[in-house]
């Protein structure tokens, strides 16, 4: 996955993501594609969660999956989640759960709960930072005020890092793929450098949802695992999502 939060020169915040999933889960030789993304695309839906006929939050999701990976509480915050691979992974959390140790949150239930119940950027950040979980994850959170954007790196039990927008020092965007920011990405899977290169070329002055869609359409940020792209602008409530494909020639991840 690739997720980013960017702020333009007027203080408007944009949040977008490519959802990539299904690595090593079956390669279709005839179609030159991974099997799981092919099955996930027809399942992809945009959801408008309402209470009293009013929108509480919006999400891009898969039918049958009750947790959330991508969502926006209009006017308040935006949230995406990227997978974090770790040897202390979710399977340990599941074993603990089966054995009766149930003090952690399932990852996608936590994001759903935050989208449903948090009423401010600060509250969402606090819950995503401090809640014990069953699996490690990266949470990418955007707010509705200048400087409100961060990447939260989580292990199962602790928050390892919160990387925030820092406009005074020129950091007008934060971008996360599937690697800790203080480490180099795997050389065979470096989506971070091309995405940053394209954002830097775009510049803060010209950043917009169409410009971000361009970044997320550039290979290898777009790759054979990319199922959908979601674009969000919290202040106007803009929420757009598109199914993606990456015909050959295209990198498999």
């Amino acid at each position, binding site marked *: 996955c690739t997720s980013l939060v960017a702020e333009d020169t007027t203080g408007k915040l944009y949040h977008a993501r490519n959802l990539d999933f299904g690595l090593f889960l079956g390669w279709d030789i005839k179609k030159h594609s991974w099997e799981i993304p092919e099955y996930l695309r027809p399942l992809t839906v945009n959801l408008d969660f309402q209470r009293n006929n009013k929108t509480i939050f919006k999400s891009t999701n898969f039918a049958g999956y009750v947790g959330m990976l991508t969502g926006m509480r209009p006017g308040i915050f935006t949230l995406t989640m990227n997978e974090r691979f770790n040897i202390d992974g979710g399977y340990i959390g599941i074993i603990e759960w089966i054995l009766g140790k149930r003090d952690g949150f399932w990852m996608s239930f936590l994001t759903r709960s935050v989208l449903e119940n948090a009423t401010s950027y600060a509250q969402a950040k606090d819950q995503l930072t401090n809640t014990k979980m069953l699996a490690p994850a990266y949470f990418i959170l955007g707010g509705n005020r200048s400087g409100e954007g961060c990447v939260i790196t989580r292990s199962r039990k602790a928050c390892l890092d919160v990387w925030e927008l820092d406009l005074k020092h020129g950091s007008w965007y934060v971008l996360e793929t599937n690697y800790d920011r203080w480490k180099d990405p795997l050389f065979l899977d470096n989506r971070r450098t091309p995405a940053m290169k394209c954002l830097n070329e775009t510049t803060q002055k010209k950043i917009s949802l169409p*410009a971000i869609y361009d970044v997320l359409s550039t290979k290898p940020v777009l790759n054979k695992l990319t199922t959908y792209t979601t674009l969000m602008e919290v202040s106007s409530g803009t929420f757009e999502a598109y199914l993606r494909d990456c*015909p050959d020639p295209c990198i498999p991840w």
Partner: protein
Amino acid sequence: VAQDLPPYSEECRKGTYPPHGPTFKGKIPWYTINLDSAPHKRWNQLISDKKVEVTNLIQAIKNLANDFFPSGKLIELVDKHLAPLVDTLPFPFNEEIKGIADVSGLPLGEVMFFNVFYEIFTV
């Protein structure tokens, strides 16, 4: 524009929005989920519409699992032992998953498996 082997080689794309061309596979439909309705029934409309697609995905995952464990033991484990775990999930997720299994006609353990796939996959 070709993608060479890493390191990265493609030029930054321009003018791809509004989405079009071979990398755009289509628009995504909208559904409303009413949080005032019972958790068991919230997903009924969506699952009714996507029953075939959900079944296809879960069958694909089962096929992959059977490739790794040809004895079928893994799926047997999922069907038998994951279903009771649904009751240990927090409300309303437990009820929602049961509702999805009822409407789709899929075994509860397999719907549970799909919903906790992230936790399993992070290794």
